[in-house]
């Protein structure tokens, strides 16, 4: 599944992000290569979402540097609670394409394909706000997929869903992420095992472990990471 090139898509060197007095990320040094599937794990407030937003260009690095070969327009980000504008599901997907320069009519045609891909073509004309949480997350995936991104960034995409919707959305993520670089934050270690090829463990904004997925679950881990894994699996 992994297609690894030598030149990293993202290179972070001693990167840090501050929110006022809070140091949300500190001294983060890592490379992410094209085709990798990277899971970001850690407790709440560990810096997972901040790292995703930094990679996506939504936040600047206050310290250190980020070198990216993937401009923002080649990326798509999925948020834990995706925001749908007060319009039809179809318009919500078309919006992303229109914002990236496609004509509205063409955008709607593409959007319909994307909705079919996630199994929502039957509700294309429905107000997106009236869809269930699982359907809205699938809609957000359709919106991301429609953009044909090289990099997919997902911020706890199944955190607020029921188990059935979680399974559906996770299967779709696996499908949509095929052939792309995937970086996602998750508390669900089962999901991490199924989707990721590499795991980065964060605590208080620092990277404490950065390992291939098998080593993360079967090898030796720093004490804090081990406690986290045991706690989440318990």
């Amino acid at each position, binding site marked *: 599944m992994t297609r690894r090139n030598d030149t990293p898509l993202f290179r972070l060197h001693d990167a840090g992000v501050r929110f006022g007095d809070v140091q949300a990320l500190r001294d983060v040094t890592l490379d992410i290569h094209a085709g990798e599937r990277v899971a970001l794990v850690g407790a709440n407030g560990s810096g997972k979402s901040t790292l995703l*937003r930094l990679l*996506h260009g*939504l936040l600047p690095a206050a310290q250190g540097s980020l070198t990216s070969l993937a401009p*923002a*327009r080649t990326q*798509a*980000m999925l*948020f834990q609670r*995706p*925001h749908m*504008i*007060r*319009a039809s599901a179809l318009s919500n997907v078309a*919006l*992303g394409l229109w*914002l*990236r320069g496609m004509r509205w009519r063409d955008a709607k045609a593409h959007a319909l394909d994307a909705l079919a891909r996630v199994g929502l073509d039957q509700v294309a004309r429905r*107000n997106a*706000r*009236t869809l269930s949480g699982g359907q809205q997350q699938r809609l957000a995936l359709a*919106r991301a997929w429609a953009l044909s991104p090289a990099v997919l960034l997902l911020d706890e995409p199944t955190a607020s869903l029921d188990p059935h919707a979680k399974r559906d959305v996770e299967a779709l993520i696996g499908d949509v992420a095929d052939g792309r670089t995937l970086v996602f934050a998750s508390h669900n270690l089962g999901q991490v095992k199924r989707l990721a090829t590499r795991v980065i463990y964060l605590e208080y904004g620092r990277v404490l472990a950065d390992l291939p997925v098998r080593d993360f679950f079967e090898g030796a881990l720093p004490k804090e990471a081990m406690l986290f894994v045991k706690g989440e699996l318990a």
Partner: protein
Amino acid sequence: MNTFSESALAAGRMLVSADPVLWAIVGRSLWVSACSCVAACGFGLLAGAWIGVSRFPGRSVVLTLLNTLLALPSVVVGLVVYLLLSNSGPLGFLGWLFSFKAMVIAQALLVLPVVTALTRQVVEDAERAHGEQLRSLGATPLRRALLLMWDERYSLFTVLIAAFGRAVSEVGAVMVVGGNIDGFTRVMTTAIALETSKGDLPLALALGGLLLLVVLALNLAIALLRGWRERVDGAATPALASRLA
């Protein structure tokens, strides 16, 4: 019977008999307020949305000024417009003083800060909640402003209704720049003031009752809008809309 009940009965008779003088005043009043709201909203909605999403040096000064203008006394607006439109003023050549247009300008200036400030608040709240996701999709600040306006359109309808309520119920500015000329610039509020001072209480009371009905209808419209919106997309009504309602 006392004066109030006699006047109330006479006012009721005027309303039922569709008194042409009364209804001409009501029609003019509503038309002036509608025109001024359209003029103020054209600029105020866009300006408010822009301020809501953009960050620039001196923004906090602009916000302070905007919030101060919310409490702008209407007679002061009337005075400024009077000075601008009077024969010796910079816009005196237009010959608009004591005209319908002068009243529209005065009311538009009066409601402009209301529309701008409330739109700014609505859009800024939306930007704080969802702006990052729109940025992620590639929306520039201008497009974010327009999209968030569209997204918050029901809250903005409430703002427009509130602005209309402010315009239709003000008296100072239209009195100063309109002159309260019978059959020409006399509106509900100026007529009430005049008729009360003349002692013609039935007409004043009838107009006062109608003005109350207009304000009631506006509040009813806000409540209906809230209810309809909650039914349509199950969204909670934003705090601002609740406050205005």
